[in-house]
């Protein structure tokens, strides 16, 4: 039992849990349960990021997705009617076509992934958070400031749209 086998165990538990949770998001008949399955999914993704040694991203994942975006979703569900009706999360008429398209995409992706040989190794530096800070205020300063403006615009727009009266 070395570190690799622990990582493998954790990966498989998380992978199966994530696929199940993602499936539950799509398949559960009540929209509120889908939203809660989505929370579980987000949480497991954070675990996956930890496995990938992206601890900071994992924390961000939990803070933003589990703590904030989920709250948005839950509020939006609670603010619209019929959130508990057994048919509040139905499929539409094109579900067969949608299934064909997504299965086709999955097949294509898997075939491509299988044919390619991927590099192994690579190393994430230990003090990743510090380096992220240096990167974001160095070479990535433009996207960084644009992200701030995007968030500002999103907030202004959403407030204008969401307010009643």
């Amino acid at each position: 039992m070395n570190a690799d086998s622990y990582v493998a165990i954790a990966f498989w538990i998380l992978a199966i849990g994530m696929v199940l949770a993602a499936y539950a998001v799509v398949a559960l008949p009540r929209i509120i349960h889908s939203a809660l399955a989505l929370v579980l999914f987000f949480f497991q993704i954070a675990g996956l990021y930890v496995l990938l040694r992206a601890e900071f991203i994992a924390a961000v994942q939990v803070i933003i997705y589990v703590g904030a975006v989920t709250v948005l979703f839950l509020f939006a569900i609670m603010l619209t009617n019929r959130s508990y009706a057994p048919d509040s999360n139905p499929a539409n008429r094109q579900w067969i076509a949608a299934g064909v398209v997504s299965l086709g995409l999955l097949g294509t992706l898997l075939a491509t992934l299988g044919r390619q040989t991927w590099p192994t190794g690579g190393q994430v530096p230990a003090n990743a958070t510090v380096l992220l800070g240096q990167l974001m205020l160095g070479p990535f300063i433009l996207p960084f400031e644009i992200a701030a403006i995007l968030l500002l615009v999103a907030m202004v727009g959403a407030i204008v749209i969401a307010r009643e009266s």
Partner: protein
Amino acid sequence: MITLQHFLVLSAVIFSIGLYGALAKRNVVAVLMCIELMFNAVNITLVAFARYLPATAGNPYGPLTGQVFALFIIAVAAAEAAVALAIILAVYRTRRSVNVEDVNLLQS
């Protein structure tokens, strides 16, 4: 031994599930949730690349570029969710419905 490929396959599976949901769901909130699934699938690949790709001459900022991108995607996804859900609430106020089919205001 878990390799990059494992993560990529997992991401592909989740992306396909999300795509199916986004295409086949009637409730707009559910469609948005499925889009979040797809965002997260993409983020997995980015962070996995950051972990497994060795630093090369073509990638001068080191292996962390993927993580930086994941951060920006998270920010964009959060902004998108906020605006989209605000639109859904506004539509719900006038139409009393959250079904995709009923939201064809722009259709002539």
